[in-house]
């Protein structure tokens, strides 16, 4: 087992004293179920506790603000999988800090010369308080005498914002006309400070020469004691030559080690190469500032261009996979992640996305976002989705339809069938036969369609009439889904034909139901009984051939081979009817009916 990088956090369970009893637990998809066992910590056992606690691990996903973030980033993530887009700014400041730094170092990959400028921008973005203070100072009655005046000037210099520094200095210069020359001199130096311009044709070497030249000039002024009479101006001058001791004096204004780092680079090594960054960063962090917060170690790892360490530290520090998942995905798209194979075979990007998406899936509402993430995890995404999608609770038909659509779009036929079956069973339980049939059609589930038809037929046998005629009369091609359903539709058609007095059509249909083996054997008795009124008509309805066939059917029915038992068709399906079939199928009545039918048949034959 690996060493633990950080101390794990402890979550106390209310009402539970770990000194007294042992705790039992089991993992869930996004939470842990915890209970008090009967075993005492000191050995032996005592009465248990009836409570089971659910411990959720991720509070973040329930925050409404973060939900907006998740939805927006999902939108962007899906777009990114097709093309690369510009990243938005996120409003959570540490995340922003890390993200922007990663942009500068990894994605924009600024080379020497521009690197310092980009880093300066990064620092400025996250130190907005300077401008606020400046506004306050300048708005006051006498800005040059404001207690924060010099702080403002120096802060601007430390951030490399020479123009702003000069503008504020003017106020002081106005107050001290006698020192006008000195102020003019400093103003000049600040103005002439060379700034590398990547657009120009100036090479890095040329810039370096210029910069050294300017630096010498500043140093000269210092040696000359030109600013000796004003401590502040002298400090500024020393900062310009990169005097570390003075920089240290202004540690408070710099406030963070990375600001210190960037400022120092600006005034000592403006042509620093990306590969040299880590050296300066390390020196700083080991001698001057202590690395305390997780944020610091993440930033340090970034400066060291150790992408994997950045991701690892982020994973530990942040309690939600959102940031890390998206960052890794972005880096992967820029081809910056070597396939860092984890021991169970999936690469780092996929692993993190799977973790993030699984977290989303435990949320009652955000599970839909997770689907797209799983789609873009080529190795395990599908398996994860298959396992998770069946766990989504289905309270309404509308939700079930959405889940099914997701499965259908991904050819997850097993899951479609299973969900449709759940919904169909629920409908059947509530006697919604039309709904149940609708679900069976969606799943192309012939077995269930047969079950539904059996229910209809049972109803008919019990009551003597059909229920839900609107459904049976309008089955359409759905009728072909199962033999039993076809029979149901056709049998109803027979009744309709009979009702319309289209007797010969009715007779033909009735016979075909038996001869074409559409009708289940259990129903043949009913059909033959239905034939009786047709046989009793004055006009001959059944032809000689048809009559023969009827007799043949009767014979088949009464012979030992296929004696119908009431429950046989049901047993085939493994389904026990809740109430017995009508007494039409009792053997006693069977014989009587046979006798009646036989006599009718023979009288027909005699006539015709």
């Amino acid at each position, binding site marked *: 087992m690996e060493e633990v990088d950080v101390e794990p956090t402890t979550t106390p369970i209310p009402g539970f004293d770990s000194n007294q009893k042992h705790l039992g637990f089991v993992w869930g998809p996004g939470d842990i179920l915890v209970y008090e066992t009967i075993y005492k910590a000191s050995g032996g056992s005592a009465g248990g506790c009836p409570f089971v606690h659910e411990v959720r691990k991720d509070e973040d996903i329930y925050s409404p603000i973060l939900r907006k973030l998740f939805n927006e980033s999902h939108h962007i993530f899906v777009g990114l999988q097709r093309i690369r887009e510009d990243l938005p700014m996120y409003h959570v400041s540490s995340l922003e800090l890390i993200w922007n730094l990663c942009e500068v170092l990894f994605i924009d990959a600024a080379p020497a010369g521009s690197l310092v400028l980009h880093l300066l921008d990064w620092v400025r973005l996250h130190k907005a308080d300077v401008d606020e203070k400046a506004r306050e100072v300048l708005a006051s009655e006498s800005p040059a005498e404001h207690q924060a005046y010099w702080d403002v000037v120096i802060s601007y210099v430390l951030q490399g914002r020479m123009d702003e520094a000069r503008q504020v200095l003017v106020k002081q210069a106005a107050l001290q006309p006698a020192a006008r020359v000195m102020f003019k001199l400093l103003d000049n130096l600040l103005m002439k400070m060379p700034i590398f311009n990547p657009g120009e044709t100036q090479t890095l070497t040329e810039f370096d020469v210029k910069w050294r030249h300017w630096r010498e000039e500043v140093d000269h002024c210092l040696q000359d004691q030109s600013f000796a009479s004003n401590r502040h101006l002298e400090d500024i001058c020393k900062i310009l030559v990169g005097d570390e001791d003075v920089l240290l004096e202004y540690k408070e204004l710099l406030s963070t080690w990375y600001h210190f780092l960037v400022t120092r680079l600006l005034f000592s090594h403006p042509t620093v190469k990306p590969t040299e960054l880590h050296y300066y960063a390390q020196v700083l962090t080991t001698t001057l500032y202590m690395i305390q917060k997780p944020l610091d170690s993440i930033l340090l790892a970034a400066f060291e261009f150790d992408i994997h360490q950045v991701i690892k530290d982020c994973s530990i520090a942040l309690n939600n996979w959102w940031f890390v998942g998206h960052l890794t995905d972005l880096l992967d798209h820029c081809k910056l992640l070597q396939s860092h194979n984890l021991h169970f075979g999936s690469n780092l990007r996929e692993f993190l996305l799977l973790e993030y998406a699984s977290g989303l899936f435990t949320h*009652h509402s955000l599970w839909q976002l997770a689907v797209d993430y799983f789609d873009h995890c080529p190795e395990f995404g599908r398996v994860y989705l298959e396992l998770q999608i069946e766990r989504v609770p289905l309270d*309404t038909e509308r*939700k079930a339809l959405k889940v099914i659509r997701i499965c259908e779009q991904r050819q997850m036929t097993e899951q479609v069938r299973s969900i449709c079956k759940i919904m169909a069973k629920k409908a059947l339980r*509530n006697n919604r036969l039309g709904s149940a049939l609708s679900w069976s059609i969606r799943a192309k589930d012939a077995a269930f369609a047969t079950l539904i038809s059996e229910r209809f037929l049972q109803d008919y046998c019990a009551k003597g009439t059909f229920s839900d005629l*609107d459904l049976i009369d*309008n089955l359409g091609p759905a009728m072909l889904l199962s033999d039993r359903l076809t029979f149901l539709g056709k049998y109803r058609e027979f009744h309709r034909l009979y009702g319309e007095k289209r007797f010969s059509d009715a007779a033909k249909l009735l016979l075909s139901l038996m001869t074409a083996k559409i009708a289940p054997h259990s129903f043949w008795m009913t059909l033959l009984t239905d034939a009786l009124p047709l046989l009793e008509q004055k006009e001959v309805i059944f032809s000689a051939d048809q009559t023969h066939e009827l007799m043949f059917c009767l014979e088949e029915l009464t012979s030992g081979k296929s004696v119908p038992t009431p429950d046989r068709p049901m047993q085939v399906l493994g389904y026990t009817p809740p109430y017995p079939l009508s007494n039409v199928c009792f053997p006693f009545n069977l014989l009587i009916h046979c006798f009646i039918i036989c006599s009718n048949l023979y009288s027909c034959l005699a006539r015709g």
Partner: protein
Amino acid sequence: MMEGINAKYVSQKISKTRWRPVSSSSLQQPDIFATGSWDNEDNKISIWSIGENGISGLDNEFEGDPQLVCEHKHNGDVLDLQFLDQDRIVTASSTGAVIIFRHHHNSQTLSVSQLWERAHHYPCDNAPCTGIVCNSPEIVTVGEDGRIILFRADQEGVLRTIENADSSTIHDVTFLRTTEILTVNSIGQLKIWDFRQQGNEPSQILSLTGDRVPLHCVDRHPNQQHIVATGGQDGMLCIWDVRQGNMPFSLMEAHSAEMWEVHFHPSNPDHLFSCSEDGSLLHWETSSNSDTPSFLQGGRNTSIVSRSAIAPAGGNQSLISSWLTGDSSKGRLETTHMLPSQTLSVNSLDVLGQCLVCGTDGEAIYVNRRVPI
């Protein structure tokens, strides 16, 4: 069509959006809409404002960015939502309840005004109420239990119930006349019910021959009472003339997944809007029936659609025809996508005047105030 439309993320999946009605005499554009959420542990209905009349927030980045006016907890998913009048909203809940909320304008709050708790129900389980249509003070609701219920706002009890009106789920309902409604169900049937008749049988049943595709939405033409549009599980848009037997007037391939809502534009019914699970919202525009091609009519259509006047035969082109009554097959049809691609399901839309609002499963609301109609 894409300009002037921005997403507002609202931290809840939106199941329904509806504009508050504006009085027919005023030429004002609508400025208030209501939304209902679904799939949350705590669902809500919310009222939003986009106009100058509304309350503008501090970070009003985009012009007309919807601002929340007030909201109220809702027990269960909001499966349908309709404005009964300027002050009252009726909702259909997944618990089977039908609820009337009152919007108090002076305090800008919502409160429950009336509640029929298990209006739709099974003997043991809950049966969601799936659709509502209002003709103040009458309210008709339908549900998964296959019941049709007639209420009167301000009356406590139920006015009339048609028990077991359908053996499958009824998904939507609309008024054809003041005494006649039309329902659509999950086995692809349209049924017309006449309230003047007693009994529990529909006066007419229509359905597509062919597969029994579940129908999810229906809307009646604002001016012609016999014309309805339906949409269902296969994303096909059908226009029916209910007087004319069993065949729909026209069938059009619209979406690649369930069509959740279809709406004729209330004042300009040459325009129709549909939204779907596939994340798209379509704007359909037909030109009126006339022997004169539209570009010679002057002033009506600024864009000339270069289609042949006769619907193309065969192939995988669906039948295209004007949906207004008449025998012309010389109709033209233009379809426009109104949203940027890659949204999750668009569950609901509403259109009034030049304003369109819709809500998605991506927890976003889109408002367009310059719909070209």
